Protein backbone atom coordinates (compact mmCIF):
# COMPACT_ATOMS: atom_id res chain seq x y z
CA UNK A 1 0.00 0.00 0.00
CA UNK A 2 1.42 3.37 -0.86
CA UNK A 3 1.83 5.84 1.95
CA UNK A 4 -0.90 8.17 2.99
CA UNK A 5 -3.40 7.20 0.33
CA UNK A 6 -6.21 7.13 2.88
CA UNK A 7 -5.13 10.37 4.54
CA UNK A 8 -4.34 8.63 7.84
CA UNK A 9 -0.55 8.71 7.66
CA UNK A 10 1.33 12.01 7.58
CA UNK A 11 3.72 12.73 4.74
CA UNK A 12 6.72 12.94 7.06
CA UNK A 13 9.81 10.91 7.75
CA UNK A 14 10.45 9.28 11.12
CA UNK A 15 12.96 11.97 12.09
CA UNK A 16 10.83 14.90 10.98
CA UNK A 17 7.82 13.49 12.78
CA UNK A 18 9.78 13.06 16.01
CA UNK A 19 11.09 16.61 15.74
CA UNK A 20 7.61 17.98 15.12
CA UNK A 21 6.13 16.36 18.20
CA UNK A 22 9.18 17.00 20.37
CA UNK A 23 9.08 20.69 19.50
CA UNK A 24 5.62 21.01 21.10
CA UNK A 25 7.14 19.89 24.41
CA UNK A 26 10.74 21.04 24.33
CA UNK A 27 10.25 24.25 22.36
CA UNK A 28 10.53 27.51 24.22
CA UNK A 29 7.54 29.04 22.53
CA UNK A 30 4.15 28.25 23.96
CA UNK A 31 1.18 29.06 21.72
CA UNK A 32 -0.67 32.12 23.01
CA UNK A 33 -3.95 30.23 22.68
CA UNK A 34 -2.62 27.71 25.18
CA UNK A 35 -2.14 30.42 27.82
CA UNK A 36 -5.60 31.79 27.12
CA UNK A 37 -7.18 28.35 27.36
CA UNK A 38 -5.26 27.50 30.53
CA UNK A 39 -6.24 30.79 32.14
CA UNK A 40 -9.90 30.25 31.34
CA UNK A 41 -9.83 26.63 32.49
CA UNK A 42 -8.09 27.62 35.72
CA UNK A 43 -10.77 30.20 36.47
CA UNK A 44 -13.50 27.62 35.87
CA UNK A 45 -11.66 25.02 37.93
CA UNK A 46 -11.70 27.40 40.89
CA UNK A 47 -15.47 26.81 40.98
CA UNK A 48 -14.75 23.15 41.66
CA UNK A 49 -12.47 24.08 44.53
CA UNK A 50 -15.11 26.44 45.87
CA UNK A 51 -17.81 23.76 45.58
CA UNK A 52 -15.67 21.14 47.29
CA UNK A 53 -14.74 23.43 50.16
CA UNK A 54 -18.35 24.49 50.64
CA UNK A 55 -19.74 20.95 50.52
CA UNK A 56 -17.08 19.72 52.94
CA UNK A 57 -17.85 22.50 55.38
CA UNK A 58 -21.68 22.36 55.36
CA UNK A 59 -22.23 18.77 54.23
CA UNK A 60 -23.86 17.10 51.23
CA UNK A 61 -27.08 18.96 51.94
CA UNK A 62 -25.56 21.70 49.81
CA UNK A 63 -26.38 19.52 46.81
CA UNK A 64 -29.93 18.92 45.63
CA UNK A 65 -30.40 15.60 47.39
CA UNK A 66 -33.08 14.11 49.57
CA UNK A 67 -34.66 10.76 50.28
CA UNK A 68 -35.65 9.09 47.93
CA UNK A 69 -33.37 10.98 45.49
CA UNK A 70 -30.19 10.27 47.44
CA UNK A 71 -27.78 10.21 44.52
CA UNK A 72 -28.26 13.33 42.46
CA UNK A 73 -25.49 15.20 40.70
CA UNK A 74 -22.44 13.49 42.22
CA UNK A 75 -23.44 10.10 40.85
CA UNK A 76 -24.65 11.53 37.52
CA UNK A 77 -21.25 13.15 37.10
CA UNK A 78 -19.39 10.00 38.13
CA UNK A 79 -21.17 7.95 35.49
CA UNK A 80 -20.65 10.66 32.90
CA UNK A 81 -16.91 11.06 33.56
CA UNK A 82 -16.16 7.36 33.77
CA UNK A 83 -17.99 6.89 30.48
CA UNK A 84 -15.79 9.48 28.83
CA UNK A 85 -12.74 7.62 30.09
CA UNK A 86 -13.81 4.41 28.37
CA UNK A 87 -13.22 5.63 24.84
CA UNK A 88 -9.61 6.37 25.75
CA UNK A 89 -9.09 2.77 26.79
CA UNK A 90 -10.93 1.47 23.75
CA UNK A 91 -8.82 3.55 21.35
CA UNK A 92 -5.46 2.77 22.89
CA UNK A 93 -6.05 -0.91 23.53
CA UNK A 94 -8.91 -2.49 21.65
CA UNK A 95 -8.26 -0.63 18.41
CA UNK A 96 -4.61 -1.57 18.81
CA UNK A 97 -5.49 -5.25 19.13
CA UNK A 98 -7.67 -5.02 16.02
CA UNK A 99 -4.80 -3.26 14.18
CA UNK A 100 -6.63 -0.05 13.36
CA UNK A 101 -3.79 2.15 12.16
CA UNK A 102 -5.76 5.36 12.51
CA UNK A 103 -5.64 5.15 16.29
CA UNK A 104 -1.88 5.85 16.44
CA UNK A 105 -2.05 9.63 16.24
CA UNK A 106 -4.91 10.07 18.71
CA UNK A 107 -4.19 7.28 21.18
CA UNK A 108 -1.96 9.33 23.48
CA UNK A 109 -4.42 12.18 23.93
CA UNK A 110 -7.19 9.61 24.41
CA UNK A 111 -5.20 7.86 27.15
CA UNK A 112 -4.53 11.16 28.91
CA UNK A 113 -8.20 12.03 28.62
CA UNK A 114 -9.10 8.69 30.20
CA UNK A 115 -6.69 9.28 33.06
CA UNK A 116 -8.07 12.71 33.99
CA UNK A 117 -11.68 11.68 33.47
CA UNK A 118 -11.25 8.80 35.94
CA UNK A 119 -9.70 11.09 38.53
CA UNK A 120 -12.77 13.32 38.32
CA UNK A 121 -15.15 10.36 38.24
CA UNK A 122 -13.52 9.05 41.40
CA UNK A 123 -13.68 12.38 43.20
CA UNK A 124 -17.49 12.62 43.10
CA UNK A 125 -18.39 9.50 45.09
CA UNK A 126 -15.87 10.62 47.71
CA UNK A 127 -17.56 13.99 47.92
CA UNK A 128 -20.96 12.30 48.02
CA UNK A 129 -19.94 10.22 51.04
CA UNK A 130 -20.49 13.29 53.17
CA UNK A 131 -17.56 12.26 55.33
CA UNK A 132 -14.85 11.69 52.73
CA UNK A 133 -12.21 11.29 55.42
CA UNK A 134 -13.83 7.95 56.26
CA UNK A 135 -13.55 6.66 52.67
CA UNK A 136 -10.98 4.10 53.77
CA UNK A 137 -13.83 2.15 55.40
CA UNK A 138 -14.40 0.76 51.91
CA UNK A 139 -11.03 -0.97 52.04
CA UNK A 140 -10.76 -4.40 53.61
CA UNK A 141 -8.15 -3.74 56.26
CA UNK A 142 -7.65 -5.31 59.69
CA UNK A 143 -9.31 -3.07 62.24
CA UNK A 144 -10.28 -3.08 65.89
CA UNK A 145 -13.96 -2.53 65.02
CA UNK A 146 -14.09 -6.00 63.48
CA UNK A 147 -15.66 -4.48 60.36
CA UNK A 148 -15.50 -5.77 56.80
CA UNK A 149 -16.82 -4.24 53.59
CA UNK A 150 -20.16 -5.71 52.51
CA UNK A 151 -18.93 -7.77 49.55
CA UNK A 152 -22.44 -8.33 48.24
CA UNK A 153 -23.00 -4.61 47.84
CA UNK A 154 -22.71 -3.03 44.39
CA UNK A 155 -21.26 0.07 46.07
CA UNK A 156 -18.24 -1.97 47.14
CA UNK A 157 -17.95 -3.43 43.62
CA UNK A 158 -18.07 0.10 42.32
CA UNK A 159 -15.20 1.21 44.52
CA UNK A 160 -13.04 -1.69 43.35
CA UNK A 161 -14.02 -1.20 39.70
CA UNK A 162 -13.08 2.49 39.68
CA UNK A 163 -9.93 2.01 41.77
CA UNK A 164 -8.67 -0.83 39.55
CA UNK A 165 -9.50 1.18 36.44
CA UNK A 166 -7.49 4.10 37.79
CA UNK A 167 -4.47 1.87 38.46
CA UNK A 168 -4.79 0.25 35.06
CA UNK A 169 -5.05 3.54 33.18
CA UNK A 170 -2.13 5.10 35.02
CA UNK A 171 0.03 2.03 34.27
CA UNK A 172 -1.00 1.98 30.63
CA UNK A 173 -0.35 5.68 30.18
CA UNK A 174 3.09 5.45 31.76
CA UNK A 175 4.01 2.34 29.79
CA UNK A 176 3.20 3.94 26.47
CA UNK A 177 4.90 7.19 27.52
CA UNK A 178 8.17 5.50 28.49
CA UNK A 179 9.81 5.29 25.03
CA UNK A 180 8.59 8.80 24.25
CA UNK A 181 10.10 10.13 27.48
CA UNK A 182 13.43 8.68 26.32
CA UNK A 183 12.90 10.42 23.01
CA UNK A 184 12.36 13.71 24.82
CA UNK A 185 15.45 13.12 26.96
CA UNK A 186 17.51 12.55 23.82
CA UNK A 187 16.16 15.66 22.15
CA UNK A 188 16.37 17.95 25.19
CA UNK A 189 19.12 20.54 25.09
CA UNK A 190 18.38 22.35 28.33
CA UNK A 191 19.69 20.88 31.56
CA UNK A 192 16.39 20.98 33.39
CA UNK A 193 14.58 19.19 30.58
CA UNK A 194 17.30 16.57 30.29
CA UNK A 195 17.05 15.82 33.99
CA UNK A 196 13.25 15.87 34.13
CA UNK A 197 12.66 13.58 31.15
CA UNK A 198 15.81 11.57 31.87
CA UNK A 199 14.60 10.61 35.32
CA UNK A 200 11.12 9.77 34.03
CA UNK A 201 12.55 7.68 31.16
CA UNK A 202 14.32 5.44 33.75
CA UNK A 203 17.19 4.76 31.35
CA UNK A 204 15.24 3.48 28.36
CA UNK A 205 17.72 2.85 25.51
CA UNK A 206 15.43 1.60 22.71
CA UNK A 207 17.20 -1.76 22.84
CA UNK A 208 15.58 -4.63 20.96
CA UNK A 209 15.31 -6.38 24.34
CA UNK A 210 13.52 -3.37 25.83
CA UNK A 211 11.14 -3.28 22.90
CA UNK A 212 10.45 -7.01 23.05
CA UNK A 213 9.44 -6.77 26.72
CA UNK A 214 7.64 -3.51 26.11
CA UNK A 215 5.54 -5.14 23.42
CA UNK A 216 4.77 -8.12 25.63
CA UNK A 217 3.68 -5.87 28.49
CA UNK A 218 1.71 -3.68 26.10
CA UNK A 219 -0.05 -6.72 24.68
CA UNK A 220 -0.95 -7.99 28.16
CA UNK A 221 -2.40 -4.60 29.09
CA UNK A 222 -4.29 -4.31 25.82
CA UNK A 223 -5.85 -7.72 26.30
CA UNK A 224 -6.88 -6.76 29.83
CA UNK A 225 -8.31 -3.49 28.53
CA UNK A 226 -10.97 -5.18 26.44
CA UNK A 227 -12.88 -6.65 29.42
CA UNK A 228 -12.14 -3.53 31.48
CA UNK A 229 -13.87 -1.30 28.92
CA UNK A 230 -16.96 -3.43 29.26
CA UNK A 231 -16.79 -4.14 32.96
CA UNK A 232 -16.20 -0.82 34.70
CA UNK A 233 -19.23 1.05 33.45
CA UNK A 234 -21.06 -2.28 33.52
CA UNK A 235 -20.30 -2.56 37.23
CA UNK A 236 -21.41 1.01 37.83
CA UNK A 237 -24.66 0.25 36.04
CA UNK A 238 -25.15 -2.60 38.50
CA UNK A 239 -25.29 -0.03 41.31
CA UNK A 240 -28.59 0.88 39.74
CA UNK A 241 -29.76 -2.33 38.06
CA UNK A 242 -29.28 -4.53 41.14
CA UNK A 243 -31.58 -2.35 43.23
CA UNK A 244 -35.34 -2.84 43.10
CA UNK A 245 -36.29 0.57 41.75
CA UNK A 246 -38.58 1.04 38.76
CA UNK A 247 -36.45 2.55 35.99
CA UNK A 248 -33.26 1.01 37.42
CA UNK A 249 -34.07 -2.68 37.43
CA UNK A 250 -33.39 -3.46 33.75
CA UNK A 251 -31.16 -6.25 32.45
CA UNK A 252 -30.19 -4.05 29.50
CA UNK A 253 -28.35 -1.63 31.79
CA UNK A 254 -24.74 -2.86 31.48
CA UNK A 255 -24.54 -2.82 27.63
CA UNK A 256 -26.68 0.31 27.51
CA UNK A 257 -24.30 2.11 29.87
CA UNK A 258 -21.23 0.94 27.98
CA UNK A 259 -22.55 2.08 24.59
CA UNK A 260 -23.43 5.49 26.02
CA UNK A 261 -20.02 5.68 27.68
CA UNK A 262 -18.24 5.04 24.41
CA UNK A 263 -20.46 7.49 22.54
CA UNK A 264 -19.62 10.36 24.88
CA UNK A 265 -15.99 9.22 25.09
CA UNK A 266 -15.44 9.30 21.35
CA UNK A 267 -17.12 12.69 21.29
CA UNK A 268 -14.62 13.97 23.87
CA UNK A 269 -11.70 12.48 21.94
CA UNK A 270 -12.98 14.36 18.88
CA UNK A 271 -13.08 17.61 20.86
CA UNK A 272 -9.51 17.06 22.08
CA UNK A 273 -8.31 16.10 18.59
CA UNK A 274 -9.75 19.35 17.25
CA UNK A 275 -8.07 21.32 20.05
CA UNK A 276 -4.70 19.69 19.24
CA UNK A 277 -5.11 20.49 15.55
CA UNK A 278 -5.75 24.11 16.35
CA UNK A 279 -3.19 24.53 19.12
CA UNK A 280 -0.16 22.77 17.65
CA UNK A 281 -1.05 22.77 13.95
CA UNK A 282 -1.27 18.96 13.93
CA UNK A 283 -3.48 19.07 10.84
CA UNK A 284 -1.32 16.57 9.01
CA UNK A 285 -1.09 14.18 11.97
CA UNK A 286 -4.75 14.34 12.92
CA UNK A 287 -6.43 14.67 9.55
CA UNK A 288 -10.02 15.00 8.43
CA UNK A 289 -9.90 11.26 7.81
CA UNK A 290 -9.32 10.79 11.55
CA UNK A 291 -12.23 13.06 12.41
CA UNK A 292 -14.35 11.04 10.01
CA UNK A 293 -13.41 7.79 11.77
CA UNK A 294 -14.20 9.28 15.17
CA UNK A 295 -17.58 10.38 13.82
CA UNK A 296 -18.29 6.88 12.56
CA UNK A 297 -17.47 5.41 15.98
CA UNK A 298 -19.83 7.93 17.60
CA UNK A 299 -22.58 7.05 15.15
CA UNK A 300 -22.14 3.36 15.76
CA UNK A 301 -22.49 3.71 19.53
CA UNK A 302 -25.29 6.27 19.48
CA UNK A 303 -27.38 3.84 17.46
CA UNK A 304 -26.93 1.25 20.22
CA UNK A 305 -27.95 3.91 22.75
CA UNK A 306 -31.07 4.74 20.73
CA UNK A 307 -31.94 1.07 20.52
CA UNK A 308 -31.60 0.83 24.31
CA UNK A 309 -34.02 3.76 24.75
CA UNK A 310 -36.61 1.93 22.66
CA UNK A 311 -35.95 -1.34 24.42
CA UNK A 312 -36.40 0.30 27.83
CA UNK A 313 -39.74 1.78 26.83
CA UNK A 314 -40.79 -1.58 25.41
CA UNK A 315 -39.78 -3.37 28.63
CA UNK A 316 -41.57 -0.85 30.81
CA UNK A 317 -44.86 -1.36 28.97
CA UNK A 318 -44.45 -5.06 28.29
CA UNK A 319 -44.07 -5.86 32.00
CA UNK A 320 -47.56 -4.46 32.48
CA UNK A 321 -46.44 -3.08 35.79
CA UNK A 322 -48.04 0.21 36.78
CA UNK A 323 -44.91 1.62 38.43
CA UNK A 324 -42.71 0.96 35.42
CA UNK A 325 -45.26 2.59 33.12
CA UNK A 326 -45.53 5.38 35.67
CA UNK A 327 -41.78 6.06 35.44
CA UNK A 328 -42.18 6.54 31.71
CA UNK A 329 -45.23 8.78 31.85
CA UNK A 330 -43.37 10.76 34.49
CA UNK A 331 -40.28 11.06 32.29
CA UNK A 332 -42.39 12.30 29.40
CA UNK A 333 -44.64 14.72 31.24
CA UNK A 334 -43.36 15.04 34.81
CA UNK A 335 -41.19 17.67 36.47
CA UNK A 336 -38.06 16.42 34.69
CA UNK A 337 -39.61 16.20 31.22
CA UNK A 338 -37.39 18.99 29.79
CA UNK A 339 -34.32 16.89 30.64
CA UNK A 340 -35.85 13.83 28.96
CA UNK A 341 -36.81 15.66 25.78
CA UNK A 342 -33.46 17.43 25.77
CA UNK A 343 -31.81 14.02 25.83
CA UNK A 344 -34.01 12.81 22.97
CA UNK A 345 -33.20 15.95 20.99
CA UNK A 346 -29.45 15.48 21.44
CA UNK A 347 -29.01 11.72 21.29
CA UNK A 348 -31.78 10.73 18.93
CA UNK A 349 -32.53 13.69 16.66
CA UNK A 350 -29.38 15.80 16.34
CA UNK A 351 -27.05 12.80 16.58
CA UNK A 352 -28.37 11.66 13.19
CA UNK A 353 -26.16 14.39 11.72
CA UNK A 354 -23.35 11.85 12.16
CA UNK A 355 -24.65 9.99 9.12
CA UNK A 356 -23.33 12.77 6.88
CA UNK A 357 -19.70 12.49 5.92
CA UNK A 358 -19.52 16.20 5.17
CA UNK A 359 -20.46 17.00 8.77
CA UNK A 360 -18.10 14.40 10.21
CA UNK A 361 -15.19 15.79 8.23
CA UNK A 362 -15.84 19.45 8.93
CA UNK A 363 -14.28 20.85 12.08
CA UNK A 364 -17.24 22.99 13.21
CA UNK A 365 -19.64 20.19 12.24
CA UNK A 366 -17.94 17.46 14.24
CA UNK A 367 -17.18 19.80 17.12
CA UNK A 368 -20.85 20.71 17.51
CA UNK A 369 -21.96 17.09 17.16
CA UNK A 370 -19.41 16.12 19.83
CA UNK A 371 -20.57 18.82 22.25
CA UNK A 372 -24.17 17.76 21.61
CA UNK A 373 -23.17 14.16 22.34
CA UNK A 374 -21.58 15.08 25.67
CA UNK A 375 -24.57 17.18 26.68
CA UNK A 376 -26.99 14.47 25.56
CA UNK A 377 -25.19 11.79 27.51
CA UNK A 378 -25.14 13.96 30.61
CA UNK A 379 -28.90 14.49 30.28
CA UNK A 380 -29.31 10.74 29.89
CA UNK A 381 -27.40 10.04 33.10
CA UNK A 382 -29.50 12.74 34.76
CA UNK A 383 -32.80 11.20 33.78
CA UNK A 384 -31.65 7.70 34.72
CA UNK A 385 -30.48 8.69 38.19
CA UNK A 386 -33.09 11.27 39.15
CA UNK A 387 -36.36 10.32 37.49
CA UNK A 388 -36.15 6.70 38.57
CA UNK A 389 -35.66 7.34 42.26
CA UNK A 390 -38.00 10.28 42.70
CA UNK A 391 -41.05 8.05 42.06
CA UNK A 392 -40.27 4.56 43.32
CA UNK A 393 -42.57 1.85 44.66
CA UNK A 394 -43.56 3.88 47.72
CA UNK A 395 -45.87 6.76 46.70
CA UNK A 396 -45.68 8.17 50.22
CA UNK A 397 -41.96 8.71 49.70
CA UNK A 398 -42.23 10.44 46.32
CA UNK A 399 -40.40 13.70 46.21
CA UNK A 400 -38.93 16.08 43.68
CA UNK A 401 -35.50 17.62 43.98
CA UNK A 402 -34.10 20.59 42.16
CA UNK A 403 -30.37 20.90 41.50
CA UNK A 404 -28.85 23.68 43.60
CA UNK A 405 -26.35 26.29 42.49
CA UNK A 406 -23.64 24.20 44.18
CA UNK A 407 -24.54 21.24 41.97
CA UNK A 408 -24.07 23.29 38.84
CA UNK A 409 -20.94 25.10 40.08
CA UNK A 410 -19.18 21.89 41.05
CA UNK A 411 -20.13 20.23 37.77
CA UNK A 412 -18.93 23.17 35.67
CA UNK A 413 -15.81 23.39 37.83
CA UNK A 414 -14.95 19.76 37.20
CA UNK A 415 -14.90 20.43 33.46
CA UNK A 416 -12.45 23.25 34.19
CA UNK A 417 -10.24 20.90 36.22
CA UNK A 418 -10.29 18.41 33.34
CA UNK A 419 -9.08 21.00 30.86
CA UNK A 420 -6.41 22.34 33.23
CA UNK A 421 -4.97 18.84 33.59
CA UNK A 422 -5.26 18.16 29.88
CA UNK A 423 -3.63 21.44 28.84
CA UNK A 424 -0.74 20.92 31.25
CA UNK A 425 -0.32 17.39 29.93
CA UNK A 426 -0.14 18.39 26.28
CA UNK A 427 2.52 21.01 27.05
CA UNK A 428 4.68 18.78 29.26
CA UNK A 429 4.23 15.45 27.49
CA UNK A 430 4.09 14.48 23.81
CA UNK A 431 0.42 14.61 22.84
CA UNK A 432 1.02 12.26 19.92
CA UNK A 433 2.70 8.93 20.54
CA UNK A 434 5.98 9.30 18.68
CA UNK A 435 7.06 5.66 18.79
CA UNK A 436 3.63 4.47 17.68
CA UNK A 437 3.74 6.87 14.74
CA UNK A 438 7.28 5.84 13.83
CA UNK A 439 6.22 2.20 13.83
CA UNK A 440 3.21 3.09 11.68
CA UNK A 441 5.37 4.98 9.18
CA UNK A 442 7.76 2.04 9.09
CA UNK A 443 4.92 -0.38 8.40
CA UNK A 444 3.27 1.73 5.74
CA UNK A 445 6.30 3.17 3.96
CA UNK A 446 8.85 0.44 3.89
CA UNK A 447 6.50 -2.48 3.76
CA UNK A 448 8.13 -3.55 6.99
CA UNK A 449 6.21 -5.60 9.50
CA UNK A 450 7.04 -3.43 12.49
Amino acid at each position, binding site marked *: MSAGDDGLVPDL*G*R*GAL*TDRVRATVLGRRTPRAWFLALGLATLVSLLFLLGVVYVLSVGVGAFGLNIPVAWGFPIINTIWWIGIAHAGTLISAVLWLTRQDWRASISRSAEAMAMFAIVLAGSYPLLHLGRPWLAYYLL*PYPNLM*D*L*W*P*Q*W*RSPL*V*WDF*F*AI*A*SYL*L*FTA*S*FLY*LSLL*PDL*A*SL*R*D*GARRRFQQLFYG*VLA*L*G*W*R*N*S*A*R*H*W*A*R*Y*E*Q*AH*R*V*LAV*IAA*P*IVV*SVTGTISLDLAVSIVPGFHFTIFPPYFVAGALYSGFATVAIIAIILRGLFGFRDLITRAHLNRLGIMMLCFVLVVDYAYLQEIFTAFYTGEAFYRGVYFDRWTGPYAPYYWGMILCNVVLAQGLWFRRLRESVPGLLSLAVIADIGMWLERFQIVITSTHKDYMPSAWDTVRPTAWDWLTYAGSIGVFFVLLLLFIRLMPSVSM*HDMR*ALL*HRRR*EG*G*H*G
Partner: protein
Amino acid sequence: MAERLHGLLARFPDADRLIAASRDLRECGLSRLDAYTPHPVAGLPEALGVRDRRVPLTALICAVLAGAGTLALQVYASLDYPFNVGGKPVVSWPAYMIVTFAMSMVGATLGALFSMLLLNGFPRPYHPLFNVAEFDAASRDGFFLCVEAADPRFDAERLNQRLKQHGADRVWEVPS
Protein backbone atom coordinates in the same frame (compact mmCIF):
# COMPACT_ATOMS: atom_id res chain seq x y z
CA MET B 1 42.93 2.20 22.56
CA ALA B 2 44.12 3.67 25.80
CA GLU B 3 40.82 3.53 27.69
CA ARG B 4 38.78 0.40 28.21
CA LEU B 5 36.21 -0.31 25.57
CA HIS B 6 32.52 -1.04 26.19
CA GLY B 7 32.09 -2.20 22.62
CA LEU B 8 31.54 -1.21 19.02
CA LEU B 9 28.45 0.66 17.94
CA ALA B 10 27.39 0.70 14.30
CA ARG B 11 24.65 2.72 12.68
CA PHE B 12 22.68 1.20 9.82
CA PRO B 13 20.56 3.05 7.28
CA ASP B 14 17.50 0.83 7.69
CA ALA B 15 15.95 -1.99 9.66
CA ASP B 16 16.53 -4.71 7.06
CA ARG B 17 20.31 -4.26 7.01
CA LEU B 18 20.32 -4.16 10.80
CA ILE B 19 18.47 -7.47 10.96
CA ALA B 20 20.82 -9.04 8.39
CA ALA B 21 23.90 -7.88 10.29
CA SER B 22 22.51 -9.06 13.64
CA ARG B 23 21.72 -12.49 12.24
CA ASP B 24 25.12 -12.82 10.62
CA LEU B 25 27.11 -11.79 13.70
CA ARG B 26 25.06 -14.11 15.82
CA GLU B 27 25.73 -16.97 13.45
CA CYS B 28 29.44 -16.16 13.73
CA GLY B 29 29.11 -17.02 17.40
CA LEU B 30 28.92 -13.56 18.94
CA SER B 31 26.49 -13.47 21.82
CA ARG B 32 26.80 -10.06 23.50
CA LEU B 33 24.86 -8.19 20.88
CA ASP B 34 22.08 -5.69 21.17
CA ALA B 35 20.24 -3.60 18.61
CA TYR B 36 18.67 -0.18 19.14
CA THR B 37 15.77 1.01 17.02
CA PRO B 38 13.30 3.91 17.14
CA HIS B 39 10.36 1.50 17.27
CA PRO B 40 9.83 -2.24 17.64
CA VAL B 41 11.06 -4.09 14.55
CA ALA B 42 9.54 -7.46 13.79
CA GLY B 43 12.12 -10.19 13.36
CA LEU B 44 14.85 -8.35 15.22
CA PRO B 45 14.54 -10.16 18.57
CA GLU B 46 14.67 -13.49 16.71
CA ALA B 47 17.75 -12.37 14.77
CA LEU B 48 19.44 -11.51 18.07
CA GLY B 49 18.29 -14.74 19.64
CA VAL B 50 16.16 -13.01 22.26
CA ARG B 51 13.56 -15.36 23.60
CA ASP B 52 12.02 -14.25 26.82
CA ARG B 53 8.46 -14.95 27.85
CA ARG B 54 8.83 -13.87 31.47
CA VAL B 55 6.71 -10.71 31.20
CA PRO B 56 3.42 -12.38 30.19
CA LEU B 57 4.18 -15.26 32.54
CA THR B 58 4.64 -12.91 35.50
CA ALA B 59 1.44 -11.12 34.53
CA LEU B 60 -0.46 -14.40 34.50
CA ILE B 61 0.93 -15.52 37.85
CA CYS B 62 0.15 -12.14 39.44
CA ALA B 63 -3.37 -12.19 38.02
CA VAL B 64 -4.07 -15.65 39.40
CA LEU B 65 -2.58 -14.85 42.80
CA ALA B 66 -4.42 -11.53 43.08
CA GLY B 67 -7.71 -13.08 42.01
CA ALA B 68 -7.42 -16.10 44.29
CA GLY B 69 -6.30 -13.92 47.18
CA THR B 70 -9.21 -11.54 46.74
CA LEU B 71 -11.73 -14.35 46.53
CA ALA B 72 -10.23 -15.97 49.63
CA LEU B 73 -10.39 -12.64 51.46
CA GLN B 74 -14.06 -12.22 50.64
CA VAL B 75 -14.91 -15.73 51.75
CA TYR B 76 -12.88 -15.27 54.92
CA ALA B 77 -14.55 -11.93 55.68
CA SER B 78 -18.01 -13.45 55.20
CA LEU B 79 -17.22 -16.31 57.58
CA ASP B 80 -15.43 -14.09 60.08
CA TYR B 81 -18.45 -11.83 60.40
CA PRO B 82 -21.52 -13.69 59.07
CA PHE B 83 -24.12 -11.17 58.05
CA ASN B 84 -27.55 -12.25 56.89
CA VAL B 85 -28.94 -10.05 54.11
CA GLY B 86 -32.36 -11.13 52.89
CA GLY B 87 -31.62 -14.78 53.66
CA LYS B 88 -28.90 -15.01 51.01
CA PRO B 89 -26.15 -17.58 51.58
CA VAL B 90 -23.33 -16.42 53.83
CA VAL B 91 -20.79 -17.22 51.12
CA SER B 92 -22.50 -15.67 48.08
CA TRP B 93 -19.68 -16.44 45.68
CA PRO B 94 -21.33 -15.11 42.48
CA ALA B 95 -21.51 -11.68 44.09
CA TYR B 96 -17.77 -11.87 44.85
CA MET B 97 -16.77 -12.33 41.23
CA ILE B 98 -16.74 -8.65 40.29
CA VAL B 99 -14.18 -7.63 42.89
CA THR B 100 -12.22 -10.82 42.18
CA PHE B 101 -12.14 -9.95 38.49
CA ALA B 102 -11.15 -6.34 39.13
CA MET B 103 -8.30 -7.35 41.42
CA SER B 104 -6.94 -10.01 39.04
CA MET B 105 -6.85 -7.33 36.35
CA VAL B 106 -4.86 -5.14 38.75
CA GLY B 107 -2.53 -8.09 39.39
CA ALA B 108 -1.93 -8.63 35.68
CA THR B 109 -1.44 -4.90 35.04
CA LEU B 110 1.10 -4.35 37.80
CA GLY B 111 2.76 -7.71 37.06
CA ALA B 112 3.26 -6.82 33.40
CA LEU B 113 4.41 -3.26 34.05
CA PHE B 114 6.84 -4.00 36.86
CA SER B 115 8.27 -7.18 35.36
CA MET B 116 8.95 -5.21 32.17
CA LEU B 117 10.71 -2.47 34.15
CA LEU B 118 12.70 -4.81 36.39
CA LEU B 119 13.74 -7.28 33.66
CA ASN B 120 14.93 -4.36 31.55
CA GLY B 121 17.07 -3.29 34.49
CA PHE B 122 15.30 0.01 35.13
CA PRO B 123 15.90 2.45 36.59
CA ARG B 124 19.32 2.73 35.05
CA PRO B 125 20.38 6.34 34.78
CA TYR B 126 23.86 5.71 33.35
CA HIS B 127 24.91 3.53 30.45
CA PRO B 128 28.17 3.65 28.46
CA LEU B 129 26.22 3.95 25.19
CA PHE B 130 25.07 7.41 26.23
CA ASN B 131 28.69 8.50 25.77
CA VAL B 132 28.24 8.36 22.00
CA ALA B 133 26.52 11.63 21.14
CA GLU B 134 25.01 10.23 17.93
CA PHE B 135 23.27 7.47 19.92
CA ASP B 136 20.51 10.03 20.57
CA ALA B 137 19.21 9.15 17.12
CA ALA B 138 18.08 5.73 18.37
CA SER B 139 14.94 7.43 19.60
CA ARG B 140 14.49 9.40 16.38
CA ASP B 141 15.39 7.57 13.19
CA GLY B 142 18.62 5.64 13.79
CA PHE B 143 19.16 1.88 13.68
CA PHE B 144 22.11 0.78 15.79
CA LEU B 145 23.89 -2.44 16.58
CA CYS B 146 26.25 -2.78 19.52
CA VAL B 147 28.76 -5.58 20.06
CA GLU B 148 30.13 -5.61 23.56
CA ALA B 149 33.85 -5.97 24.18
CA ALA B 150 33.07 -8.50 26.89
CA ASP B 151 32.20 -11.01 24.19
CA PRO B 152 34.86 -13.76 24.09
CA ARG B 153 35.00 -13.53 20.29
CA PHE B 154 35.29 -9.74 20.26
CA ASP B 155 37.87 -8.49 17.77
CA ALA B 156 37.53 -4.78 17.08
CA GLU B 157 39.39 -4.76 13.74
CA ARG B 158 37.52 -7.62 12.13
CA LEU B 159 34.17 -6.57 13.53
CA ASN B 160 34.61 -3.09 12.18
CA GLN B 161 35.11 -4.50 8.70
CA ARG B 162 32.28 -6.91 9.01
CA LEU B 163 29.83 -4.22 10.13
CA LYS B 164 30.88 -2.00 7.24
CA GLN B 165 30.38 -4.91 4.83
CA HIS B 166 26.82 -5.13 6.07
CA GLY B 167 26.25 -1.53 5.11
CA ALA B 168 26.91 0.26 8.41
CA ASP B 169 27.11 4.02 7.82
CA ARG B 170 29.52 4.53 10.64
CA VAL B 171 31.12 2.59 13.47
CA TRP B 172 32.06 4.10 16.84
CA GLU B 173 34.18 2.77 19.65
CA VAL B 174 32.16 3.12 22.83
CA PRO B 175 34.32 3.98 25.88
CA SER B 176 33.19 2.20 28.99
